[in-house]
Every structure is written in C-alpha cells, then in structure tokens.
C-alpha cells in the first residue's frame, strides 16, 4: 500500500479527490459506525454508572452459569465463551469474503458470505436460548419477609445477597399460597401449577425441601433493563447484519458486483459486521468478565 509522499500531502485537501482516500460510501459507513460506537458506549457507561452507585451488584459468574443441555450444572462463562468464539469465527469468514472480493473471486465471496450468515444465525440462536433461560428460570427470593419465585426480567432481579439460616424457615411460614405453589414447582416439575394449586398449604410446605433451597434477596432492579437493553440492541445489530449479509450474498450470487467491476459493497457490509463483533467484545467485557 502506497503511503503519500511529502509533495502529495499538500494536495489532500485541495479538492477533486477524497482527502481520506476512500470511496464516499465507505467513508460514511465509517462515520456511521463511529456514531454507533458512541451509542453503545453511552449505554455501557450508564450501566457502569449505575453499577458504581450500588453497594451490591450481582456476580456475573453466578448470573451466567448455565449451558444448554447441562441442566443445573454450574458452568460460569462457558456459554458466553461459545457465543464469543462464534462471533470471532464469523468475523474471520467475513474478512475472507472481503479478501475473495479483492481478487474478484465470486465463488469465494459467496462461500464465505454464506458461512458468515451461518455464524450470525448461530449467535442469535444462542442469545435466544440465553434470554429464554434467564426469563423462565425459577429462583427463590426473600422479599418483605416472604418467599417468592422469580426469573430475571426487567422488573425483578433474583441475584441479591445470599440468605442463610432460620430466616428462610420463618419466611416460608409467612409465604402465601401462590408463593408456596411456585416454590413446590421448582422441585416438582412433573406436576402442573393447577395440580399444585389444589393442594393445601401444609401439603405444599411439606413438599418444599428447605435445606436444598437456595434463597437470595432481590437484587438491583436496574440489572435486567441494562442487560436486556444492551444485549438486545446488540442482537438487533446482529440481526440486521445477517439481513444485510443475505442481501449481499444474493447480489454477489446474481453477479451484480462482478458486472460493477468491484466488491466494495462487500467491504462496507464487512465493516458493519466487524463492528458488531467489536461491540460484542465490549459487551462481553462489561457484563460477563468484570
């Protein structure tokens, strides 16, 4: 790649050429990505502000410790590592598609774009599983002296301070019927809520194994909003990236870029896709690692 020599440098801003030595659309893609970086940055920084303003914040290793098919095994960081590697690999296939485009290799572009789309869809599937798992999970929580069972939503957070000792038994005695039904359901998935609802409070209390029950206080409510808001916004970027990549794949397949003489559109779609990977690196850092 030729770097400008001293004589040429004076003319960069003289007009008639791009002072950035890139095509207009590509420059605008860079500026869009920069503005998007500020949007994501603002979200993540506001998450940091709230986290710094709290005395207690849930440990990510406790929140994210599940893996599909692994039941209740404690596997912190495992699933999100898989998601991270899926996105890194799809970034690599994207850069290989751009590389093939540089050489006018239509077959190569189509092949690597297809793999990139597969990677994007795999990532979205992982995220769908993670969200479902977190929303539908059943966690015993102590609130207002009673026990309740909640998942992780934007309104409630089950990851507060651990509760031990006689406080649990006291709370169980005060827990109303609906709470007991949900508590009994944790260990008795074979029974429906209707079946459990028909039982008496004493029967339900007998079914709840208080020694195995892991009880926490409710955690910071802001956690859910930030988690679903930011990972959802990122997931939306992945989704739109997949759509853009599908359009690029079809156009490459149809020979549109071949007739045009260059694969610049693949480069621009590639910039967007790499940016999605870049944002995930920071989401991974802020939510899962630190």
């Amino acid at each position, binding site marked *: *790649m*030729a*770097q*400008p020599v001293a004589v040429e440098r004076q003319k*960069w801003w003289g007009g008639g*050429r*791009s*002072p*950035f*030595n*890139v*095509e207009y659309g590509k*420059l605008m893609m*860079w500026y869009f990505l*920069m503005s998007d970086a*500020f949007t994501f*940055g*603002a979200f993540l*920084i*506001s998450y*940091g*502000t*709230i*986290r*710094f*303003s*709290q*005395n*207690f*914040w849930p*440990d990510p*290793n406790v929140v994210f410790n599940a893996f599909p098919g692994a039941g209740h095994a404690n596997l*912190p*960081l495992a699933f999100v590592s898989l998601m*991270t*590697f899926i996105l*890194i*690999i799809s*970034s*690599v296939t*994207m*850069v*290989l598609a*751009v*590389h093939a485009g540089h*050489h006018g290799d239509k077959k190569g572009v189509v092949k690597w774009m297809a793999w990139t789309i597969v990677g994007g869809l795999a990532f979205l599937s992982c995220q769908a599983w993670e969200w479902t798992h977190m929303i539908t999970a059943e966690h015993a929580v102590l609130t207002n002296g009673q026990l309740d069972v909640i998942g992780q939503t934007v309104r409630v957070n089950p990851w507060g*301070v651990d509760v031990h000792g006689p406080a649990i038994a006291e709370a169980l005695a005060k827990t109303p019927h609906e709470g007991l039904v949900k508590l009994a359901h944790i260990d008795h998935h074979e029974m429906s809520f209707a079946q459990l609802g028909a039982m008496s409070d004493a029967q339900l209390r007998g079914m709840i194994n208080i020694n195995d029950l892991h009880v926490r206080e409710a955690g910071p409510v802001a956690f859910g909003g930030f988690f679903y808001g930011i990972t959802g916004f990122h997931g939306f970027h992945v989704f739109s990236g997949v759509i853009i990549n599908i359009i690029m794949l079809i156009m490459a397949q149809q020979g549109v870029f071949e007739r*045009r003489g260059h694969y610049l559109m693949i*480069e621009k779609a590639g*910039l967007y896709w*790499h*940016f999605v*990977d*870049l944002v995930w*690196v*920071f989401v991974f*850092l802020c939510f*899962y*690692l*630190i």
Partner: protein
Amino acid sequence: MEQHTASEITYHHEPSGDTRRIWRTTIILSVLTLIELGLGFLMYFTEFPHWIDLFLKGIIVILTLAKAFYIVSIFMHLGDEIRNLIMTIFVPLMLFIWFIAAFLWDGNSYRTLKNRYDPYYKETTSEKKTNTADTTTHLK
C-alpha cells in the same frame, strides 16, 4: 458509479496475495480471549483481596482494548488506510476517556454520599461483593 469511485481514490491498495495475516489475527484474538477467560476463572475460583481483583480486571480491560485494536486495524483494514482517515475516526473516539471517567466518578460519588448520610442504607445493602469504602473523604 465506477467513474465516481475511481476519481475519488488517489492510491489503490494492492490486494494482499494470501490470507496468512487473517489467520494470524484470528489466532491472536482467540488467545487473548482465552487469557481473559482464564483470568475470569481465576477470579471466580480464588478469593483475592479487593485490589488484586481490580488489578486483574484492569488486565482484562487492556486485553479487550488489544482485541479491539486487532479487529479494527486488521479485520476492518483501518491500519491500511491513510493517516487522514485513521485520525478522523480515532480522534473523536478520544471523547470516551472523559466520558468513562466522568460517569463512573459520578456513580461512585452517588454511592459514597448515600452511604455517608444514610447509614441504614449502607447497613442493609452492603455485602463484601463491592468496595463500600468512603473514597471521597477529602470532600467532607
């Protein structure tokens, strides 16, 4: 469109012949991620004093910035562009230095003040998970 494109660009990049650089970057990114995960597990399985946890988190942040550098420089080819383009992207992003510092400071100040003037709040919400020390005593 072709004429438009051709007249704008002064230097055309020679397309690189092989994909060796791409694979090398892939390996670097994977290794950095594995180191981050290793440090994450280390913090999870070991009870460190607070400052060591902070130190390890600092290393993870630096490794993340290194990953960001490789993605932007190699995968997004910003490193191959001329200085003008690099600067028009890089310089505005410097705003993040103030952005992060100011807003984390703000959150920390809120927590410190609330703990100072509402001991009941501090008592009922504290657990060893975060540092609840009064870090702005000079402002008392």
